[in-house]
């Protein structure tokens, strides 16, 4: 490989400000996107507890349902939707397939991702409600 003839030189070193993520909208949205992981994790842990409590027996089983919990769930839902939206649209632009040697346009892939999401939500929601009767 080639070489470059160099001379060292005093320079001003760039340092990233600690609040870089608060300085620009895109960066902030990125941090929010990553942060969604935390509330979602907490909610899943709650679900795990709920499952565990099914072992308490018929007499003592009381499903969770306090107002603060509903509020928490609403907040989690917002994060969850943001996660779904960002993840599916980003993943959609990355996936690349070829059908009959032609690349599938990424708009189509994104759309089908959201389609999959909608379908899965309907099926799961239906099951959760249907079997409750």
């Amino acid at each position, binding site marked *: *490989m*080639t*070489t*470059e*003839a160099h*001379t060292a*030189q005093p320079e001003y070193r760039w340092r990233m400000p600690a609040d870089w993520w608060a300085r620009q909208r895109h960066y902030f949205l990125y941090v929010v996107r990553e942060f969604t992981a935390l509330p979602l994790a907490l909610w899943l842990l709650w679900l795990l507890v709920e499952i565990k409590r099914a072992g308490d027996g018929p007499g003592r089983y009381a499903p969770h349902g306090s107002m603060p919990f509903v509020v928490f769930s609403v907040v989690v839902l917002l994060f969850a939707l943001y996660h779904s939206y960002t993840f599916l649209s980003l993943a959609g632009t990355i996936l690349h397939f070829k059908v009959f040697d032609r690349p599938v346009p990424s708009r189509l892939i994104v759309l089908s991702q959201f389609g999959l999401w909608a379908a899965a939500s309907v099926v799961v929601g239906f099951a959760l409600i249907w079997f409750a009767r």
Partner: protein
Amino acid sequence: MDFESYDVLVVGGGLAGLRAAIAAVEANPRVKVGMVSKVYPMRSHTVSAEGGAAAVMSADDSYDTHAFDTIKGSDYLADQDVVEAFTREAPVEIIQMEHWGCPWSRNPDGTIAVRPFGGMTTWRTCFAADKTGFHMLHTVFQTSLKYPQITRHDEAFVTKLLVEDSRCVGVVALDIRTGRFDAITARSVILATGGLGRVYAFTTNGNICTGDGMALAYRAGVGLKDMEMVQFHPTGLPFTGILITEAVRGEGGYLLNSEGERFLKRYVPNKMELGPRDIISRAMVTEFEEGRGFEGPHGKYMHLDVRHLGEKVIDRKLPFMRELGREFVGIDIVTDPIPVRPVQHYMMGGVDADISGETPILGLYAAGECANVGLNGGNRLGSNSLSECLVFGAAAGRAAAHYASSAKPVTANPVDAMLWDEARRVEAEYLEKKGGVERIGPIREEMQLEMDAGAGVFRTKESLSRLARNLGGLRERFEKVKVDDSSRTFNTEITAALELDFMLEVASSITFSALAREESRGAHARRDFPERNDAKFLKHTLAFHTNTLAPRLEYRDVKITTFKPQARTY
């Protein structure tokens, strides 16, 4: 690294320079190659070429037609042996570029596609979408990275050629980053410094196109050949000078005057919009003068109309042009005509070099736009220049490597003294000079406007004499120049001053060469001598540096082999 030494030193990292460096290494893997460039190689102005590179690629084309088109286009000022060799080598180089990864646009069967271009009788212009120069430059640059024999000095500005006993033994370069002067010695030196468009105000050329290599060679005693031959491209955007590629006309765009008329029918009835650049530019200026141009805030202009092609064709074939129109003029070329006017574009003239790039100074070679190997004569055909950079860059690289392997090594002794003298000169003239009063910017701007006015599309004895006088005045003012910047670190005002010095030098060589050529040929159109005069001027002009503003001029016969000069009509 005060004293770096190479076998072959390439000055310039554009298409010609990079091709030369690789050719030198491939000719002899043992040569040590140095490359000095005042910008990182991928910033070189080759990057802005849009249209394509010409070569005979298909079976129904022939070397002879390519040669004839080139020679007729040159108005018979091209050296025909050079043209013939060029047409044979060009396809080889195009394939070589392909092997290195250039993303040439393709035919359905996967072979390299070609498109029509002005002045070419058949389709022979290879292209990579509408960014041919960009793709070619990045391809050769990235390929060059794999050779361990090549050492680059990026952002180093060559201020002087080291010549000892009429042999070139290296250069003095200013390391822009540190402000230090280095002697970079070599057994052979290749100049590939590109064009000089910035001596004009209205140009398609980038900021770095200041004719440095021509001035360096000129001062070292090499003649500058055919400097009066400056190409004006018909379609530049007013104000910025950004080029609207010839492909717009290739795809069927019309040129219209203010009366809505395709005026080219009066000038190149058979070719219309695909006539050669010099003739179309003159036609436009003539129309302006006869009152049939549009008036705008940046002078007169014509309309380049592609509206009849429809949005589909435009978006598929000219997307970059639509973008340029939207951003730089605020129009949509689908619904509005594009304002255009002739713009300085290319320098046919340059450092006197032969078919293998050799100059009269031993060990000094030249290639690319800064050289004149005799290919382009009075007018270059569009798309011949990128091929020229490849063919003659490679030739110069091979010749320099060959010469270097037998040449004597360079001795340190006189080089040190020359380095010291040069460093002192620049420091005394710019950095340490007291009492300067003139700014670089205004002198440069005045020179550019003077050149537009005096040595533009049409010239006369009066315009050129006035220009010569004014250049003298500007030179005097330049002696009193003041530099604001006293720092050594990345001092771009010093480089601007050095460039202006070079530009004043080449501007005067253009002016005096043009003054002496009392005929009209190719791009050189004298109002006072409207006819071509083969009896007197079927000759190359050679301008030699003197101690005064005016060069000493000599003439050399043009090499004619197969094609006898005829009238040039289209």
